[in-house]
């Protein structure tokens, strides 16, 4: 562990809300609008933290615990995720299993908190969330297994440290497929178009947003910050595979990784600007497709 390994954590904590700002500004650019301020998510977080909380009488401690456990889980996961060549604070063999497990824990508590309200909308959202995540998790695990086969390393930091442009030269198809699968996982997990529409107000069509309708004030700020961090971490995961290049200078590597992250945000904004979201009954096809893509990548490494 060296001083450098604090950097990915700090950057994630500070810059993750900016990702959402970049996505929204990209969408505004395509719409021919001025768009909201880049720092809007920070303003929202600040505003929500000032507010009081309203709890329905029908809810129990589970509803109150949901946002906090979610935030705790994602903060723990942030300890494990390197940024480009810069290793994470914690790295140990098979830490990616813990990473995926923490995401699962977070989702579990979001879902039970939603069910705790007894609202029919939130029940529908919970059912969709569980169904879709059951399809994205295999894709995530198979993609990670492929990376383990490819690099021969067992922790996220060493995996990304080991990966280099040589891998793209030798087994470009494998990495390409893994990146594709991870990007679909990223879009699905963060309720972006084409899986979900983060901007919709139509409670009957929402997935993630509908589960958090009853949260307010600081609880909702936690949820907002949690989803920003989740986007950042899954983005860092896809980016580590997509851009394994090292310049030799750690600062330059870091700058390249940051550039990649915001490039990814722009790409998400572009995707959201040029296509409609899928019908809910078509979404599983996309997610199973991601799993299939990751499986093909894994097969290619078994030579």
């Amino acid at each position, binding site marked *: 562990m060296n001083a450098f390994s604090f950097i990915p954590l700090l950057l994630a904590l500070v810059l993750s809300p900016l990702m959402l700002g970049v996505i929204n500004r990209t*969408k505004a650019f395509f*719409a021919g609008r001025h768009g909201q301020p880049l720092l809007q998510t920070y303003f929202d977080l600040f505003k929500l933290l000032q507010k009081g909380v309203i709890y329905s009488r029908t809810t129990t401690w589970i509803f109150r615990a949901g946002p906090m456990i979610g935030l705790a889980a994602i903060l723990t996961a942030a300890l494990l995720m390197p940024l480009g060549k810069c290793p994470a604070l914690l790295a140990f063999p098979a830490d990616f299993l813990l990473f995926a497990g923490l995401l699962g824990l977070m989702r579990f508590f979001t879902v039970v908190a939603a069910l705790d309200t007894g609202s029919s909308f939130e029940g529908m959202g919970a059912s969709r969330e569980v169904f879709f995540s059951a399809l994205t998790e295999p894709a995530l695990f198979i993609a990670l297994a492929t990376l383990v086969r490819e690099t021969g390393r067992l922790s996220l930091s060493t995996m990304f440290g080991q990966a280099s442009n040589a891998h793209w030269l030798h087994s470009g198809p494998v990495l390409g497929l893994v990146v594709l699968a991870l990007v679909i996982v990223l879009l699905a997990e963060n309720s972006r178009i084409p899986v979900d529409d983060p901007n919709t107000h139509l409670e009957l069509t929402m997935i993630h947003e509908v589960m958090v309708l009853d949260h307010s004030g600081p609880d909702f700020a936690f949820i907002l910050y949690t989803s920003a961090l989740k986007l950042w971490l899954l983005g860092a995961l896809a980016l580590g595979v997509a851009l394994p290049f090292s310049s030799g200078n750690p600062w330059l590597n870091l700058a390249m990784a940051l550039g990649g992250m915001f490039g990814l945000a722009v790409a998400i904004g572009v995707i959201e600007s040029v296509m*409609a979201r899928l019908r809910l009954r078509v979404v599983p096809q996309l997610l199973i497709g991601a799993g299939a893509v990751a499986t093909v990548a894994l097969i290619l490494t078994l030579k």
Partner: protein
Amino acid sequence: MIDLANLPPVAFEEFRNMIVSAVKAGARLNALFGAVLPKAGAPGSDAKQVTGDLRLFAVLAQDSAGTLNVTSTLVGDAYPALTPDCPQAHWFEREIAEQWGVKPEGHPWLKPIRFHRSYREGRDAWTRSAEIAIQPGVVNFFTMTGDEVHEVSVGPVHAGIIEPGHFRFQCHGEKVYHLEISLGYQHRGVERALVGGPDKRTIPYMETLAGDTTIGYALAYCEAVEALAGCRVPARAQTLRAIALELERLANHTGDIGALAGDVGYLPTANFCGRIRGDFLNMTALICGNRFGRGLVRPGGILFDLDETRRMELSKRLRQAGEDVSNAIELLWEAPSVRSWFDNTGTVSRETALELGLVGVAARASGIERDVRAQFPSGIYRFAHIPVSLYHTGNVFSRAHVRWMEIQRSIAFIFDQLKVLPEGPVRTPTGPLAANCAVVSLTEGWRGEICHVALTDAAGRFAHYKVVDPSFHNWMGLALALRDQQISDFPLCNKSFNLSYCGHDL
């Protein structure tokens, strides 16, 4: 227009048989309503005071022949309902029961639709006590029972800024078995307030029956009054009225297509159409100073003429907006992700649409040739024809596509009319209204057929005024479009109909 003396009430059996057999033979029920008319020999009685026998009136349209039939009968406290033999009467009979406290016996699902007290004191079709307040939406709903079914209720308060309405879905997982719609939250009592008119308040009431259809409603009212007064509207005013009506259609259709794109998360068309809708509204403002056309249409003509410079300006803006709207909407048809939503969602078959008597875009999207501008033309539409825009699939795509065809045809129509704008005045004085007459006035608003029926008393005042919004026919179409669909498709289906709540609730 007909003299009420020439419209004697027929026996109820005859009335019922006539409607049922005419509808079976392909006619359509434009309006079915009750009215209590003051006795002919009792002048000076307060028009709003309701005493005497209830008379039912029915307006039947033969679309292909372009003819209207009006018939009437007298009923007592109850009568055998028409609905079992004529589903189109379903909503109308609920309205009659609520307004007048008579019971259509054998009506399959007799519930209030607007939740107000009956017009005749002490009478109530459900024998509710006068002490208990009537609350909208507090009524029985269809239910489905079983271990795995669930019920979702949405509204009347919604997440977006839209009008209030209550929707109950009976679902199994994501699949909707039935949707029941309960409205009435915006009931203002407009029809009763119109009795005794026309007076100073009548026109503002008409222009705000449904704010997005200001021109359509004002036009239907003015044509009714002009018929009663025997007034001939100058040709220039007739042309400008039609231009305003088509501009209203353009603005709303453009907004609707943008909103459909927004519902599936397709941002380019959603954003562009939102702006272009404003361009069309501004063109109406160019004519009369109001984006929704308030203060333009008045009995006898219009209040604002279009001078030469503004005529040129209107052509120029329309050309630009026409290009913009083409670009924006073509994007929508070219996106496969959009087509896969639109093509498979919210189908209403032609048979269902005929049986329910759908009107407007919803009917034409199910392949029914039904357009007041072509079949019951008035004003300039008698001379300048707009082709009926038809598509056959009956789904969301079909309704969007019919709107797109109508946008193109309305633009072409306005260009033609601007080129040959007749000279002359834009308004003539209207005389007093004919006494003891009935008049039916039809207009094709952007949602569909607007039907106004005015009955005058011995002094030439309104003894009864009936307004039928296109939404009144079409809400049931939305409920049936949702059968066997995914519940997540509801917002898109709803937007593809885009019905009026306040026009329905009156």
